[in-house]
């Protein structure tokens, strides 16, 4: 599974790991922007979330409709055990690269 996910999907999984509650499209995008310093495109976030859910790495459910959203519901996301495992593997790989960086310079 770890090989299947890309860097952007890893970013989403890491965000969901850091924010286990009430995470939805907008907040995930904002967190990625805060951490990574770049603004991911809106469509990319939603399609990546859909893809991750299809693979069973995350799960989602509908929240309550709110006035601020024009009476529409939120889609809340939660990371699954397989997603957490995939994210940790990715993290470990990154840590390995990170450790190697001083040796390169």
């Amino acid at each position, binding site marked *: 599974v770890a090989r299947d996910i890309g860097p952007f999907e890893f970013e989403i999984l890491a965000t969901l790991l850091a924010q286990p509650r009430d995470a939805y499209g907008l907040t995930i995008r904002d967190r990625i922007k805060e951490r990574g310093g770049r603004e991911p495109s809106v*469509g990319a976030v939603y399609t990546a979330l859909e893809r991750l859910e299809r693979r069973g790495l995350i799960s989602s459910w509908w929240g309550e409709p709110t006035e601020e*959203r024009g009476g*529409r519901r939120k889609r809340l996301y939660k990371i699954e055990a397989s997603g957490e495992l995939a994210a940790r593997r990715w993290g470990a790989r990154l840590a390995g690269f990170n450790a190697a960086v001083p040796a390169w310079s």
Partner: protein
Amino acid sequence: MARGTRSRAARTLRDNRIAEKEREQLARIMSPQVYQHVVEAFRGPVSAEVFGSIVQALAHKTSPEEIQLVNKWLGFLEAEASEIARFRRRVDAWKRRAAFWDRQADHLERRAAEAQAKAKACAKLPPSGAVFLLACFVRPGREDELLGDAESQYRHMMARLGPRQARWWYRIYVLRVASAMLPGAVARVLILHKLLGLWNAHR
């Protein structure tokens, strides 16, 4: 004003001017109360009682000139009364017309206020065309998520930038999202087309 009406009014005025001197004569003949009756009769419609009182008061005057004068006066009074009644009818008609236009103006003001309130309410909502376009690209069943997120961001932008800029921001936002979701939407349409073709072939 109709031609006949104008000429009638002019005639009445001319007669009134002629009557000025005769009025002075009449004031001399009449008792002050009767003269007051006559003056009042000019202001409103002349009633039969007023005529009666004038005739009674002047009954002892037997001079033919005086009787002629009184008759002439009664003729003037009648003419003036009918003129006044006619003007009153016209004023009533104008009042009715004014009331009608007042009602029309009220109705239009109310409509304008409603339209203004509607425009204000519409400004709070994102542009409907863009919402429709976005809804076309979203995968069925996920409309609430994407449209809701977009609307909450739109409201945030409206508070920050104002309605005009927020609407433009929303349109650009929709184009960006739609461009990212275009492949999926095209694939859905193609699959649907294929399924329809298969179904038609099966039939």
